[in-house]
């Protein structure tokens, strides 16, 4: 397996990173990855320094020095792990199919949009419409969340460290100690992330989005 590290160069335009998934980059050389087209007149080499470690146990991609200009990171990922050391733009982990995506910084709008499976863990703050139209999976946010959180969300879990603004289409289900969180937190322990430090099983549970299916939940961790 390969662990690919993409160190972002300073950019003056937005960069669509949807082609840079662990499964897509497996087995590719530095030159092959560098030549991947991200837009009509933009290749990976223009915006990233590329390095490849072929001795990795798991399929992984690490983004470094990214900013809000880097959009669609992890879009449609099906396996492996992406770590973003820095901020990320809009649509981080959108349509995530499986795997783990960790971002240490702040992210743009529509993080986890239409996500179906897997874990998207954001250590910073999110923009608006976080978890919009999410179908399933787990999306964690340690920072704050923007407006229209979980808009149209069908199923899945938003695990939050901070209580979000109240919304008419999300229903307060009260405070609970949920045993499954122990298993979830155990899986976090394997990750190099601040999420590994969470231990409280006590949460406030909200269900929504009642404008739609209403089977999704927001869990706000209680200290």
């Amino acid at each position, binding site marked *: 397996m390969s662990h690919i590290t993409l160190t972002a160069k300073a950019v003056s335009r937005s960069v669509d990173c949807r082609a840079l998934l662990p499964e897509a980059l497996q087995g590719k050389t530095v030159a092959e990855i560098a030549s991947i087209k991200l837009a009509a007149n933009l290749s990976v080499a223009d915006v990233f320094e590329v390095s490849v470690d072929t001795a990795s146990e798991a399929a992984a991609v690490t983004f470094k020095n990214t900013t809000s200009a880097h959009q669609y990171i992890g879009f449609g990922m099906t396996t492996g792990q992406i770590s973003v050391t820095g901020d990320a733009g809009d649509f981080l982990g959108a349509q995530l199919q499986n795997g783990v995506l960790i971002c240490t910084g702040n992210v743009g709008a529509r993080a986890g949009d239409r996500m179906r499976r897997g874990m998207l863990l954001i250590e910073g703050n999110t923009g608006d419409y976080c978890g919009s139209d999410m179908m399933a999976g*787990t999306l964690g946010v340690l920072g704050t969340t923007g407006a229209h959180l979980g808009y149209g969300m069908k199923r899945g879990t938003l695990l939050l460290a901070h209580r979000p603004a109240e919304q008419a289409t999300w229903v307060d289900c009260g405070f609970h100690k949920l045993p499954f969180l122990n298993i979830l937190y155990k899986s976090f322990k394997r990750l190099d992330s601040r999420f590994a430090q969470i231990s409280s099983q006590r949460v406030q549970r909200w269900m929504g989005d009642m404008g739609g299916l209403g*089977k999704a939940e927001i869990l706000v961790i209680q200290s």
Partner: protein
Amino acid sequence: MVINGVEIDDTFAEAFNMRGTRILITAQNLRWAYNAANAMTGFATSVIGCGVEAGIERELTEDETPDGRPGLSVLMFAMGSKVLMQQLETRMGQCILTCPTAAAFAGIESEDMISLGKHLRFFGDGYQVSKQIPDANGKLKRYWRIPVMDGEFLTEETTGMVRAIGGGNFLVLGASQAQVLTACEAAIDAMRKLPNVIMPFPGGVVRSGSKVGSKYPKMFASTNDAFCPTLKGVVKSELDPRVESVMEIVVNGLTFEDIAVSMKAGIEAACSLGKDNGILRISAGNYGGKLGQHHFKLRPILSGEVSA
């Protein structure tokens, strides 16, 4: 062969192929884990009348359970996969789902995965929640969270089903009922320390060993008269005049080696009381070797030969 004055018969226990599974049951504390596990393994002494044979294998520490709570590991055996699946689902629904704070997880990996909470989830009436969470090896496991009155019932979707063996056994023959029971208790204490086996009868011991057939046409099995001490003069008895009581320990396990090792430990523990404490003979139950696929020969097993 004689151990501590106790004669070891030159005979064998006859055992059968079975299907087995392991379930890990956790709860808020061991008291409630036992409440759940005792219910689940209750009325599971013999496949003849109970469908499955089940028992508690051992206690689990918080580090050994998926959800970090105290728990118990339960083994369950049946003659076929269909019965095992049916019984597991029924017992999950009636014994684990109902027990406050209890949760159930897969205790064994196999290519054959059978339903643990897969169908039980519908009890949630649409409010059940599926969560796929990677285990310590990164392998995704599916769990079901089912809303119940005490909070949430958590169960893994499936557990593994493996080929197993049931019906390993030995008989303890002694001078009195009390002495034989004491020897059997010592044997069970020793056998319960070993992994991958359960002794499904009450307290691990069975007093009503059976033979195939009966004078009554509708009965498939009847009392093992050759080992009944009160019939010594009436039937073709296996017992000499000194024997006043016989008890049997039946052991089911995941492999031949597991059963052989546990039989050795149990027999040695029973024999440790010795002839002076009224333990006279160790024998084993079989059907002439024609029915069961596995023969556990007492003397080779006690000599340390455990392979099939």
